[in-house]
């Protein structure tokens, strides 16, 4: 069985699709395990789409996966991992390396600090695994950052208006909000303007920066 959940982020010429895929894995003709893969599909207008991906979760088949609830369970898993990726992307834009580190560590346990008796081989395996996630995030972050830089936000007039709010932090917040809300499609440009204008109003009302 295979279930896909897609989240689409549009910014200028870029359409970024985050696709979570939950699937059961087979061995010797028997359904034995399950795997969730996250794929970031980068599509610039007029160019061929390409993608990067990583295995977000894998293991033995859960009791839900074998039952009639399999489809719902798979869909929830795929959705959860796609949203988690979007949240990490949001933290990248907010430049919160420590929170990103803690969040990745909560997911992949690669930092042996505060853990009981971590073994070296386990730590190495976890580091190798999270390295692929970090690589996928770094590539996607760079692409979306280029799209933001190429967009209307960086036109001289808009830049002058929005720069004091920290443009990338606002973008990050839009992505985190989208991840938390669990929508299907995000028009990043429109959401950015909405949030930035709201922030500008708050700043002009109390004269204090909200950041």
């Amino acid at each position: 069985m295979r279930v896909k959940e897609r989240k689409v982020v549009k910014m200028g010429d870029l359409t970024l699709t985050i696709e979570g895929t939950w699937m059961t894995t087979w061995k010797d003709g028997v359904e034995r395990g399950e795997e969730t893969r996250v794929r970031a599909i980068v599509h610039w207008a007029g160019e061929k789409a390409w993608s990067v991906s990583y295995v977000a979760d894998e293991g033995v088949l859960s009791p839900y996966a074998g039952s009639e609830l399999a489809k719902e369970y798979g869909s929830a898993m795929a959705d959860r991992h796609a949203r988690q990726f979007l949240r990490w992307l949001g933290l990248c834009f907010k430049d919160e390396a420590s929170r990103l580190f803690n969040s990745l560590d909560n997911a992949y346990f690669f930092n042996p600090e505060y853990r009981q008796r971590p073994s070296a081989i386990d730590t190495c395996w976890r580091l190798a695994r999270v390295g692929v996630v970090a690589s996928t995030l770094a590539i996607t972050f760079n692409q979306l950052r280029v799209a933001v830089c190429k967009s209307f936000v960086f036109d001289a007039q808009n830049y002058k208006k929005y720069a004091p709010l920290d443009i990338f932090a606002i973008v990050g917040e839009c992505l985190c909000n989208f991840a938390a809300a669990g929508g299907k499609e995000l028009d990043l440009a429109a959401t950015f303007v909405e949030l930035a204008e709201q922030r500008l109003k708050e700043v002009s009302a109390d004269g204090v920066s909200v950041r």
Partner: protein
Amino acid sequence: MEYPCAEKGLKFGDLTIVVRAQWHRWPADEPPGGTTEISVTLMRDGIDARIVKTAPFRKTDWPLRCLPHETPRYAEAEAKRAVNVFWRWIGLALIDDVWQLLIELDDAYRFRPIEEIRELSSLEFLTNLRDVGSVMEPLLAVLTHLLCAIHVWRLQTDVEADATSMCVQLGEQLIAFAEQDGVRFADFTPKEVNANA
């Protein structure tokens, strides 16, 4: 221009592992910067196929700002250092000294943001984590094959030896091996069995 590569290998039971490193200069980069690439080759006696894993080990920006004529010597030293450090990390993993391994990996790749001491941008953090992750791939391949080789050796020889203490012993030998400069190959198969064979 190809710079000299460094190589150090070992044998344990029927497993032979060769670790090779080479510094490559980035094209048109002046003063020269480059990447040290590490590659491991795993071979089993009697099997033609081999496993090869390659990863960038260290990127060096501006290593020779004022001394471009020293590049070949630098490249050689950098490659030797990479091979020795890699074997040392394998040794630390085998003796299960996870803290020392973590400290050394973090020193090399700076992947842990530390408040007010090491402030990393999110992109720096991600690329550093990616780099340490990619080095873990060949390291993990060597480690798992060595662990298998230890178990295979115990089964084949019927020697009453505890696998954990064998790992610790081999790990300590590898840490010492990493510090030896002139040695390019060593057989770490336990001696008493060599004598019986």
